[in-house]
């Protein structure tokens, strides 16, 4: 007896995505087939960029995704600075990297909370998002806004970091590091989490390459690729990144990679602060960018972000195309869902860390035998997952007593 389960996934992706669906075929409770159906929240950003100046485009590109806005903004500027033949001051490169690592911290903590929520471990959600607030306070202090920090400008950065800011960043990082030790202990040490997440959403090393998966999803399968290390940009030639990998190639592995990347980001932040060079924070950029084309790559928290830019010698670009990391990760999704249970669907999807907001959607269940159709919303799917695992003795909510009272 098979049921067709259609799981529409909410608008959550950068560059254009909107409620997309999954068509899932179940046999009993197991997923035997999954197909990503695509319907997207396309805004028309690429076209809009063709009628705005380079600096106006910066503000649109920054808002392709509100969680990794600095990633998009930096990738875009790297492309046009390269075409203009402009080298930004070293201090600006360091500041961009500092903001990038802070963004990675907030994004990974966000993910940790969302993943916790999906598996019924709401204490983790609350703790991770409370820690995240500390990071957002620092981001707002440096950039002026909690989201879309706007620190970048063509030729460098708009705002400097002063010694008081540096101390505040250090203080925050010390706290987050302490808290993250608990998250690492949870991830690496708790059998309940391993039972809940292990073996779920598998995507092997070969499959990662075949489907073009990026970021923590790829690194969790042992694919040791990180743009910061492969083609260092900004200050990463000096602040060398240790690429974090794992071999589990499943949701558990993706969790391990992210909590360890939080630690690595903390280490990088300390390096960047210790070695922050004196100097200017901005260099003059021409208004008209000489004709040419290039591709800029950036390691966003979710993975490789690719920006193609073609300039034509005027102050308006000829063509821009952005491929954000989550787009790359959707392709392996059907594969990840196969042979797992319906109860695993929500965490598998959450574990590729799609830009949030996938949880407002409804699910239509087509029962082929009875011909009946029922509407399931995401919350019900989530509750189904939590109950299913609880009935089998796996209850992540019980881990709440492993987290310190904070």
């Amino acid at each position, binding site marked *: 007896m098979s049921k067709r389960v259609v799981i529409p996934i*909410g*608008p*959550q992706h*950068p560059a254009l995505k*909107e*409620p997309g669906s999954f068509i899932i075929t179940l046999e009993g409770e197991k997923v035997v087939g999954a197909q990503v159906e695509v*319907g*997207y*929240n*396309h*805004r*028309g*950003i690429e*076209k*809009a960029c063709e009628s705005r100046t380079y600096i106006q485009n910066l*503000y*649109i590109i920054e*808002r*392709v*995704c*509100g*969680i990794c*806005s600095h990633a998009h903004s930096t990738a875009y500027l790297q492309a046009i600075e390269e075409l203009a033949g402009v080298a930004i001051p070293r201090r600006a490169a360091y500041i961009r990297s500092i903001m990038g690592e802070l963004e990675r911290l907030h994004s990974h903590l*966000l993910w940790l*909370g969302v993943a916790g929520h999906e598996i019924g471990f709401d204490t983790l*959600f*609350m703790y991770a*998002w*409370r820690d995240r*607030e500390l990071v957002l306070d620092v981001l707002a202090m440096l950039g002026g*806004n*909690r*989201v*879309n920090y706007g620190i970048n400008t063509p030729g460098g950065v708009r705002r400097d970091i002063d010694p008081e800011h540096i101390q505040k960043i250090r203080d925050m990082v010390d706290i987050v590091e302490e808290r993250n030790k608990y998250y690492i202990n949870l991830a690496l040490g708790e059998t309940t989490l391993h039972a809940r997440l292990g073996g779920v959403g598998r995507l092997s090393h070969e499959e990662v390459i075949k489907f073009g998966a990026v970021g923590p999803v790829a690194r969790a399968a042992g694919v040791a690729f990180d743009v910061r290390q492969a083609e260092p940009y900004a200050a990463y030639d000096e602040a060398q990144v240790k690429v974090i990998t794992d071999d589990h190639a499943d949701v558990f592995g993706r969790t391990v990679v992210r909590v360890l990347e939080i630690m690595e980001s903390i280490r990088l932040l300390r390096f960047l602060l210790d070695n922050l060079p004196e100097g200017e924070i901005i260099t003059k950029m021409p208004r008209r960018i000489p004709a040419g084309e290039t591709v800029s790559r950036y390691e966003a928290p979710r993975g490789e972000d690719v920006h193609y830019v073609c300039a034509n010698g005027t102050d308006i670009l000829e063509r821009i195309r952005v491929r954000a990391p989550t787009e790359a990760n959707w392709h392996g999704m059907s594969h990840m869902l196969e042979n797992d249970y319906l109860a695993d669907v929500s965490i598998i999807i959450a574990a590729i860390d799609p*830009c*949030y*907001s996938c949880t*407002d959607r*409804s699910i239509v269940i087509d029962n082929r035998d009875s011909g009946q159709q029922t509407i399931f*919303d*995401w*919350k*019900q799917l989530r509750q189904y997952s939590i109950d299913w695992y609880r009935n089998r003795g796996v209850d992540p909510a019980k881990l709440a007593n492993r987290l310190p009272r904070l």
Partner: protein
Amino acid sequence: MAKRNIIEKAIDWSRRKSPWIIHFNAGACNGCDIEVVDALTPRYDVERFGMLLKGTPRHADVLVCTGAVTLQTRDRLKRIYEQMPEPKFVLAVGTCACSGGIFEDCYCVSGGMDTVVPVSAYIPGCAARPEAILDAVVKLLTSLEKSQKAIDN
């Protein structure tokens, strides 16, 4: 709003004190969506006001919507609004939901929410801060309380 009997007043009071919210992303970059969810977390803790995030429009009092409405989500937004029972309120969260923001002239963007549904409160910001969202909800509830009192008296 008409004069109500005692049962209706009780329902109304409990609705004012505990509005149930549905959150819909009409085409946002997720910045505002995260701030809406952030409002649930310990620092802002919207649940102390009795606000609950609901999954379906049929149980919701308040539609909290983010994003510049795209041509694809326009109809869905309308349907969600229509499925909500009266009385219902709509919050446009973030500059894009208010007016379309910087995406307003993009070919696939319809514009702000009020091009599709009536809006009760506009919360600007890019992204709108959780405090601003809470502030808007409280103001909405207060104005609801005031106008109902005026009718009752």
